């Protein structure tokens, strides 16, 4: 690498006075071809994004505005004059706000305990906080049903006539489901705060609480805002938890499903979708524009991010709290395999493997095989498209690059239900007749989960010094070969991370794909929902256990293949 990075300098002394490392100034025919190629690729990506992100959203919007005689706001008038629907909107907002506040608070405590203190068991807490990241989002609900549902262990043991279904159920499930996202973000922010800032405060006479409030938390404020906004979007758009444990407490995401799939009322579903998108989009834009510019986390020279000893009065409560949350998550996930081997939860506690026979339905284990196919396809296609997009955006900077970037990130603010509805509306007619094929599922997963993958690619590219590329070019490597030989190898770790990310999402996602599955093609994650609704929690647990095993197994396998820490688990 030394040799290579020295090369551009020597090229500066060449008599042409035009550095060979600036392909834009002195173009060989091959480079010209490459430029045309990247331009063509940029156009292709833009078209893909227009087709698979913008078009479905526009179709939803159009459907919500379509009346018998052209455009109309009648559907919106209907929505806001219906007491029931307005209540659903308020309920959605309420549950999202409450879940967000609790999630961020819990995540803050955990992230603080892990990054800034010397409590024991930090690795365990950290691991447990991340576990929900790789599981179907509603497994937490399922576990709570096993604990506190009508036949739950605790409900029965205490002879309660209360059960968790409804507001409480949704909130507790969402807290544990979305904890990882908030935790990762806050741990990153808190972990980068220079410990000498806290020491300086203490040196100036501040006690631990004053230091925490005036220095540490004050530095983490942008991170907190960001975490809150992201978790708010996740809770607002969450579909799996409300549908499983919401009982009679309706939220927009589930109501859209009921309207569209239950009553085939596309106009009402589309209208609700637009209403649902608005707060999400606002939260997304606030986060992107306002919070993004306000980060204090700059790693300065000599900055140390070390854990500090805590006074016992803080240390032990922190330990109990974070350890307790970690343990509880462990229990939640232990309940799923346990539930799968208990003959009849809440009735017959004897052990059996009956649920794995999948005798209770005709579906058998096939939905899981479908999920694996979907996940593998989404992983492969998604990784290629996301990496190429990242490269085009970060390195070639074609005209329209900002548009590509913005459209790539937009799906963050799009609820899965909206994606699902949009894809039905957009792709049930030629030229893109995709309904009833696996491709509608693959594209929905790829483009809905696109933002995180593209961001990961861009970040990885940012860390690869462009000088390396320029050096390779100036050494005579064509641009094409540079990309293949120099850039790609450096990206393999990221590529595998992105693959894993798409793969996991293909395995566990529900909200978008539940609109898109077709007769004869069910998915494992959706089958879990069906089993719970049909009153077979044991079978749901069996399916959940298999999915968890596949997901965890694939992560471990890839890490073993590619080597340890080069495969990161991406968030969101």
């Amino acid at each position, binding site marked *: 690498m030394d040799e290579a990075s020295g090369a551009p300098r020597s090229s500066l002394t060449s008599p042409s006075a035009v550095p060979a490392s600036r392909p834009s100034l002195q173009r060989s025919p091959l480079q010209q071809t490459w430029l045309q190629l990247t331009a063509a690729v940029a156009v292709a990506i833009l078209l893909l994004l227009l087709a698979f992100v913008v078009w479905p959203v526009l179709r939803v919007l159009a459907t919500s505005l379509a009346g018998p005689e052209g455009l109309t706001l009648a559907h919106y008038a209907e929505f806001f004059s219906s007491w029931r629907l307005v209540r659903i909107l308020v309920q959605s907002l309420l549950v999202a706000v409450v879940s967000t506040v609790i999630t961020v608070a819990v995540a803050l405590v955990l992230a603080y305990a892990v990054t800034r203190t010397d409590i024991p068991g930090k690795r365990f807490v950290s691991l447990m906080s991340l576990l929900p990241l790789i599981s179907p989002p509603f497994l937490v609900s399922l576990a709570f049903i096993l604990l506190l549902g009508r036949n739950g262990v605790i409900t029965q043991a205490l002879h309660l006539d209360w059960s968790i279904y409804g507001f409480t159920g949704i909130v507790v499930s969402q807290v544990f489901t979305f904890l990882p996202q908030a935790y990762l973000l806050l741990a990153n922010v808190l972990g980068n705060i220079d410990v000498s800032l806290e020491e*300086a*405060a203490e040196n100036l006479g501040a006690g631990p609480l*004053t230091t925490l409030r005036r220095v540490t938390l*004050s530095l983490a404020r942008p991170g907190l805002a960001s975490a809150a906004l992201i978790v708010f979007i996740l809770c607002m758009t969450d579909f799996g938890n409300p549908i499983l444990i919401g009982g009679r407490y309706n939220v927009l995401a589930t109501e859209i499903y009921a309207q569209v799939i239950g009553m085939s009322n596309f106009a009402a579903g589309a209208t609700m979708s637009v209403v649902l998108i608005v707060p999400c989009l606002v939260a997304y834009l606030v986060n992107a524009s306002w919070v993004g510019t306000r980060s204090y986390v700059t790693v*300065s020279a000599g900055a140390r991010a070390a854990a500090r000893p805590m006074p016992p009065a803080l240390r032990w409560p922190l330990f109990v709290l974070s350890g307790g949350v970690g343990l509880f998550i462990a229990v939640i996930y232990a309940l799923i395999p346990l539930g799968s081997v208990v003959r009849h939860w809440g009735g017959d506690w004897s052990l059996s493997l009956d649920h794995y026979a999948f005798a209770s339905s005709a579906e058998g284990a096939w939905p899981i095989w479908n999920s694996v196919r979907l996940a593998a396809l989404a992983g492969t296609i998604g990784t290629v498209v996301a990496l190429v997009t990242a490269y085009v955006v970060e390195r070639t900077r074609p005209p329209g690059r900002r548009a590509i970037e913005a459209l790539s990130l937009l799906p963050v603010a799009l609820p899965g239900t909206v994606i699902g509805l949009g894809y039905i509306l957009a792709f049930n007619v030629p030229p893109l007749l995709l309904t009833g094929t696996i491709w509608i599922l693959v594209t929905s997963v790829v483009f809905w989960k696109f933002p995180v993958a593209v961001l990961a690619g861009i970040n990885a590219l940012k860390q690869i010094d462009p000088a390396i590329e320029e050096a390779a070019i100036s050494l005579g490597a064509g641009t094409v070969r540079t990309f293949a030989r120099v850039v790609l190898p450096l990206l393999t770790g990221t590529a595998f991370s992105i693959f894993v990310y798409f793969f996991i999402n293909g395995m566990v996602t529900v909200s978008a794909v539940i609109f898109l599955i077709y007769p004869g093609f069910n998915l494992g994650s959706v089958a879990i929902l069906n089993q719970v609704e049909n009153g077979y929690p044991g079978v749901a647990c069996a399916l959940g256990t298999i999915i968890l095993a596949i997901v965890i197994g694939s992560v471990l396998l890839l890490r073993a293949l590619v080597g340890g820490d080069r495969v990161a688990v991406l968030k969101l």
Partner: protein
Amino acid sequence: MRISLAGLTKRFGASTAVDGLSLEIGRGELVSLVGGSGCGKTTTLRLIAGFERPDAGEVRFDDRVVNDVAPRRRSVGIVFQSYALFPTMTVAENIAFGLRVARWPAVRIYERVAEMVALTRLGGLEGRYANQLSGGQQQRVALARALARRPEILLLDEPLSALDAKIRLRLRGEIRRIQQDLGITTLYVTHDQEEALSIADRIAVMRNGRIEQVGRPEEIYARPRTDFVADFIGISNLLACRVVSAREGLVDWEGERLRIAPDVGRDGEGILLALRPEKLAVVAERAPEDGRNRLHGVLEVVTFLGPFVRLEVAIHGRPLWVDAPHATGVGLERKKSVTLAFAPDDGVVIAATGSSAD
């Protein structure tokens, strides 16, 4: 306030960062702690501030043992190497932080901040944030913040290391002025020997977690007690000699008889003789005998260093550094033989070789 460190020891796992260190810092004195990277300077400072607890030994302020006193109750002001300014606060808020925490009345905080701003010449910058300041300005804010609460002790950890040479020189003078105006007991950590020599009342040279020598700058410079100190505080030529006659002050180096101050060491004992480059003079080969020692060698390298030339002269195959005025350097050519002279009193005898030569 007086600081006494007695047998201070701090271990990190298997390694010992500070190893039985003892040091006295008098009231109003500025002691500079110098030493190579990783020798335990920062750890010593953190032990005094209370961020680390000693594994053995005591930290005393005046005669009070403060081992168990929390950092925030020690009345110690610190300037961190990274300055550690609070990025969410303005300059004025940074300076006022300690006063707010101590619940000073608002009016007095206002007055005190104005006072500190004047003292550190920060006028006009009160409303800025740390990232809107230059390195030198940040450094002064850090100093103002540390001093605002009128601490009785000031600790500075390489306060100038992040700045460029010119600003470093100016700020060093300013720190010294402020320190003397306030008469505050100060420990100043640096790895720059020149900075230490110019700013300190006394210098403590540290090595491997221990103090190697403490003394006034001129003392340390003129009479280093170990080869390490001699080497660290300016370049020294170190000659491993054997005492021929202690009474007469006669030693043997590579077969040459050299005269040094009498009554050093015992006959037959090995000693190290330190010769500062500027104490060596280039003389004509047949210069008259003047009681100075003569050494004959070959000139190897001539380096022009602004006010003087540095010569590397090989004598018996060993290089000696000589700093000579420009005039001397003019007629010199490489690979020519030269004669060096030094007075018996200019050689500094450092410990017996058994303990210090390496």
